């Protein structure tokens, strides 16, 4: 049945489920293509958080003196960076995914949502590798995980939801208006600095900041990721608020995507 469909609607999750294999193959394609013909191969998954860790630890930690109250500041930064790298990269690739798969969009039908969602696969792949290295680093610094490690998959899920949701929203906006491509590039950069849990310990933040900052989903989720991975006390308030904000953004992203996806082939 094909007819004009008006207005807002939830994605057809049953249809999406039927196309899960396509999701899998697209994710697999992205992972394989990303590391094709590279010498370092999957090592690149670790390069980004490691390099950022080095810069932050040196300039913010040593030169800026931020790290003097934090034990194992490089580990602290790396743990957050693992989560952020996943978050930022997933938003970036998801946002550009529909436009870069133009040929698919104009030549064949499938639920368009599959395209941005599949990009989360690459991020998750990298996330698992980087987390494994995090385990190694933590052990080297003598930091042992606690029961809170069990929370890690839940945090990863919340991160995926938030990142995919924002990516989905941006991908739909970029189809119609390429302006958002430029917003994306520096937006993600600025966002990183607007996520102080990456480089500041929670104690360094004011009461007000701690109250409002979790509205930035990255803030609470990055903190929760590090806390659960390194066995620190989990800030449930920040985690809860950030996860809820992320979920809300994901819902809005999917609603908006669904609303405009029917015109993708016309406007792309």
């Amino acid at each position, binding site marked *: *049945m*094909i*007819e*004009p*469909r008006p207005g807002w609607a939830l994605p057809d999750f049953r249809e999406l489920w039927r196309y899960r*294999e*396509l999701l*899998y*193959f*697209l994710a*697999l*394609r992205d992972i*394989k*293509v990303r590391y*094709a*013909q590279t010498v370092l191969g999957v090592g690149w998954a670790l390069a980004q958080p490691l390099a950022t860790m080095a810069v932050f630890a040196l300039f913010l930690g040593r030169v800026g003196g931020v790290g003097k109250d934090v034990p194992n500041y490089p580990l602290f930064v790396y743990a957050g960076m693992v989560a952020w790298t996943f978050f930022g990269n997933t938003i970036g690739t998801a946002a550009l995914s529909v436009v870069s798969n133009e*040929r*698919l*969009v*104009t*030549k*064949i*039908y*499938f639920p368009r949502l599959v395209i941005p969602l599949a990009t989360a696969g690459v991020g998750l792949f990298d996330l698992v590798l980087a987390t494994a290295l995090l385990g190694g680093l933590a052990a080297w610094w003598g930091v042992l995980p606690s029961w809170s490690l069990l929370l890690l998959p839940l945090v990863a899920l919340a991160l995926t939801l938030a990142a995919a949701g924002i990516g989905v929203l941006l991908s739909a906006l970029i189809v*119609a*208006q390429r*302006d958002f491509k430029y917003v994306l590039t520096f937006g993600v950069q600025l966002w990183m600095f607007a996520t102080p849990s990456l480089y500041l310990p929670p104690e360094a933040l004011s009461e007000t900041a701690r109250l409002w900052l979790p509205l930035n989903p990255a803030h609470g989720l990055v903190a929760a990721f590090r806390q659960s991975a390194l066995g620190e006390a989990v800030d449930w308030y920040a985690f809860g608020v950030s996860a809820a904000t992320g979920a809300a953004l994901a819902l809005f992203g999917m609603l908006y995507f669904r609303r405009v996806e*029917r*015109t993708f*082939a*016309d406007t792309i």
Partner: protein
Amino acid sequence: MHPAIRVQNVTKSFRLGTNSGRPNLTERLLGLVRKPRANPDNEFWALKGVSFDVTPGEVVGVVGRNGAGKSTLLKVLSRIVEPTAGRAELRGRVGSLLEVGTGFHPELTGRENVFLNGSVLGMSRREIAKNFDAIVAFAGVERFIDTPVKRYSSGMYVRLAFAVAAHLNPEIMIVDEVLAVGDAEFQNKCLGKMREVARGGRTVLFVSHNMTAVQSLCSRCVWLKDGTVHADGPAREVAEAYNRAAAGGGGAEVRLDAHPGRTLGSVRAMTRVRVCDDADGTSPAVPMGGTARVEVEFELDRPLADATLGVVVKDAYYSPIFGINNKVTPCPPQPGPLTAGTVVCRLPRLPLMPGVYPLDLYFGDRLNDFDTVHNAADLTVVAADVFGTGRLPPPNAGPVCWPATWEIRAARAPEGTTDGP
């Protein structure tokens, strides 16, 4: 019986993309909360109230000139674009093939691409795995299946892509003129497979420019003109009417300056081609055994001392039947270097059966062809009593009509004459 495809009053309009007509970001954000005002001047109606039914198992051709709405109709039925108004119902699993190799990625190996492309076309992983060997064998790329497809020759690439599509097993198949790409052998294979699909009792919607292919594959034909159904009926009748209308008077004349069949990297030199019967110079249809005239006008920015034209006559499946150029046959010298002119090619004693034959044109100088246009125009051949018997060979015996002389000998001497004592 329920129709397999029911198209009811399907309408599709596009907003014409002028720069001033394009909404900017602010307008677009406003558009989220407010319906944008429709501007009738900026609208282009690709489809205007198209309706028809297709019963299960029917093979329907959709014909029409470029811009008549064929592709839009296909995209609507494939759910790629949404109709502006009206509705369409499709019963059964739909496989749509608007392009071969959709989703192929050059970095992936042949094997990986088969799975990716298969799942893009809607096959399940199990289905692909089951057909995998058949797909690879059909494409003939067994040795290279674990090589990235960027190392494939273009022929191998297209063969593999088509092989995947050919093993798609939907109840309703929507096929665009994918056959107009690739080499002749490949196109032949495609049409062979199409015929197999058509005979297998599946519902097929086949869009084509190629009337002969439509006539031989389809039982019914829908002719779209300016976004509406102009005619709908038995394939032979509609295709003939379409041919008559397309040919018109004054020969089949086609402008070449913006022809879609021009190959990549061609220099635009040929501007127009006219195909007609040499006897009267106006009729677009050449009788069998008659002389066809192909006139190609050219225009260049530098003078050309040795204009060279190659003409390849192809059959309904785009396989070449014969080709000729003025390098291999004697040609009187041209009147000095020319920046514009006409090359006239006469093909005498045309040994072709009645039908429509696409022509490829190759234009250049003695050394190389710098302008190539595939399927530039059609040569239409009509029946004539070439053998003086009032009869012609059966139409399914190939495109070439060739005379023969006969003699019938007995194996032994006739009975009654060899009586011995």
